[in-house]
């Protein structure tokens, strides 16, 4: 490594300017993710005390973890585009599209469970890449492009289903699908040691996704460049990052993860149908954003996404168990969300105040 800067210049530059300190690190209690985790634990404990059934492994914890796993993947799908400051309003529809391809592969081509999954992932990646390509080429806001794509797919998918199937769903179930839905880690043994029966096997998909996405964002060039692409894009372009390609990559990753989430949903409910992913849009934002991922791009938190997703799922489950009716369920859900986010804000403000007072 050659050093083109000589001693004199270095000295000239180093003349005793004071070190610029960043604002002091926020105290641990102001950390968004720790606060959230605490909230999840507290709520879990509260629900457990009110309804001991909350700790029922088979009927509560197992499906709860399965849900958290799936919505975490949904959240990661959104996180990938949030990392470059974009949005993907078509996450759900991308899942539906890729599952449609997977369904065709099972129904018409008799693929095995995992080769069908692979086909779906490829389809998801492709449709995501298409969205990314349009955005990169035209420079149109991602919100608009994915919204339009959502409309397009919303129109197209039912046409395909009604023309290819009798029941508007692909009902062929390749071997292994039922097992994947019901088996837990108790069925995975290394020697005599088996996993917990409360943890569904499907969670492995989420863990793999988290590890891969986490690795990409923390360890690789791609991840770093994605984060730079979002903040701001002109600077990234001028630093030699191929921003157009990164935009396409981010959207392709999003599509791929959406496809995975769609697969997890199809496995856990039973069949592949046109409405897969309809419920994905809002959770896809909630998880990452509650977890601290910035809408403006440049910062992502994989753990945060998991915790944020867990928070909403736990609330919903707890309210379910408390027998809260439909009319009140949404009200409480919304209020708790607002509260969770506001306390976050209060914490930040308090820690800033403390900081100022200390000086």
């Amino acid at each position, binding site marked *: 490594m050659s050093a083109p800067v000589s001693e004199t210049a270095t000295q000239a530059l180093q003349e005793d300017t004071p070190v610029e300190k960043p604002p002091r690190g926020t105290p641990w209690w102001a950390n968004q993710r720790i606060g959230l985790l605490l909230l999840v634990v507290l709520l879990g404990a509260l629900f457990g005390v009110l*309804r001991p*059934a*909350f700790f*029922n492994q*088979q*009927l*509560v914890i197992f*499906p709860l973890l399965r*849900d958290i796993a799936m919505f975490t993947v949904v959240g990661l799908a959104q996180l990938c585009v949030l990392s470059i400051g974009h949005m993907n309003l078509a996450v759900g529809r991308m899942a539906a599209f890729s599952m449609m391809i997977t369904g065709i592969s099972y129904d018409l081509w008799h693929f095995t469970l995992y080769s069908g999954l692979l086909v779906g992932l490829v389809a998801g990646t492709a449709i995501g890449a298409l969205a990314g390509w349009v955005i990169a080429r035209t420079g149109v806001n991602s919100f608009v492009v994915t919204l339009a794509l959502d409309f397009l797919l919303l129109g197209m*998918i*039912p046409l395909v*289903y*009604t023309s290819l199937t*009798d*029941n*508007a*769903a692909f*009902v062929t179930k390749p071997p292994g699908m*039922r097992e994947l*839905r*019901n088996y837990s880690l108790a069925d995975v043994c290394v020697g005599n040691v088996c996993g917990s029966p409360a943890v569904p096997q499907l969670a492995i998909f989420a863990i793999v996704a988290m590890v891969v996405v986490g690795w990409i964002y923390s360890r690789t060039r791609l991840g770093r460049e994605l984060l730079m692409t979002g903040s701001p894009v002109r600077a990234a372009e001028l630093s030699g990052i191929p921003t157009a390609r990164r935009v396409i990559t981010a959207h392709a990753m999003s599509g791929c993860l959406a496809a995975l989430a769609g697969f997890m*949903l199809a496995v*856990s*409910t*039973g*069949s592949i*149908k*046109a*409405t897969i992913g*309809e*419920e994905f849009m809002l959770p896809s934002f909630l998880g990452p954003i509650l977890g601290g991922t910035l809408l403006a791009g440049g910062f992502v938190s994989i753990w945060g996404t998991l915790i944020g997703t867990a928070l909403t799922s736990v609330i*919903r*489950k707890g309210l*379910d*168990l408390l*027998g*809260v*009716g*439909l009319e009140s*369920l949404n009200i409480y859900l919304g209020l708790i969300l607002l509260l969770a986010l506001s306390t976050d804000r209060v914490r930040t403000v308090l820690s800033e105040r403390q900081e100022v007072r200390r000086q």
Partner: protein
Amino acid sequence: DSTSGAAPKDDASSGASSGPVTLKDGSKVKLALIPGGAHPYFQPWKTVAAVDKVDFRLADATFNETGEWDQGKQNNVINSLAAQGYNAFGIFGVSPTDINSTFEDLKAKGFAVGSLASCPAGDTNAADFCLSTDVEAAAYKAAKATIEAIGGEGTIVHLTGNNVDSNTQRRIAGVKKAIAETNGKVTELPVITDIDKDLSTAQKAVADLLASKGKEIKGIVTTAYNPAVAAADGVASSKLPIKVVAIDDDAKILAGIKSGGVAATVTQNPAGQAYIGGWLLALLQSKQCTMKTPGVIVDSGSFVVTKANVDTYDEERKAKTKALQPEFEKQLSCQ
């Protein structure tokens, strides 16, 4: 509304006392009736659940509609109820193609499960039984009623809900069948689907239809709730001589029948489903009886209501409910 609560009460006395199969001990049965989501159709279930509890002396009976028309959420609701000790489930599956998986899971855990108001798509039913309107038959009846109302000749149009739902496909088939039987005297415009999401969508679709094709159309058959309400209203305000046949007996539609805005409606038997379903599930869960052929499908009946029988159709329906009990008894093997 006035039509739901009355029927089961009569049945209750007769069912519990005079029927050959009387539930011996319902004290360990906790019954849950779970619709697909909030919908007027299921409202009778709510009252009947309470009736079930009293009549069959069940440990508990509940009605939970928090699934919000989402199979994943419905599964969650079911699991939560199971965790709280509910052990007999009458379920309207949100997704006909998925619900068998849910049934299988519940069966595997030793619960009694009945598919109510809708049967799983395909040929198999993993629940203990299915007690539902034969949707294809109901749609067929509705189409027949429409054809009759327009005098057996002319063009009709079918308005319905979510296209990518197997029940919708069955309804479309039912209407087509009725039209095919007219040998070309009655023709059908392309089916208008996906307008049950909300009232304004349905209303707009109806208005557009009437504006563009109003003069050709002689009858409208609707097999979903919002389109039915919208069609009745739209035709009335357009003053076109179009006959509307609706679905279900929501107060608004009954009012339409009485005022003449709606030519007929095809009502189903939600109260009967909930009552007989509850009885059957209690028998099964208390291990008093088992199904001879698990997964048997029984039609809970559908009834054409016109101005002529609008005040009396409920009797017919009660009779049908009464008849359902012996019908099922034949399917049971009891201790």
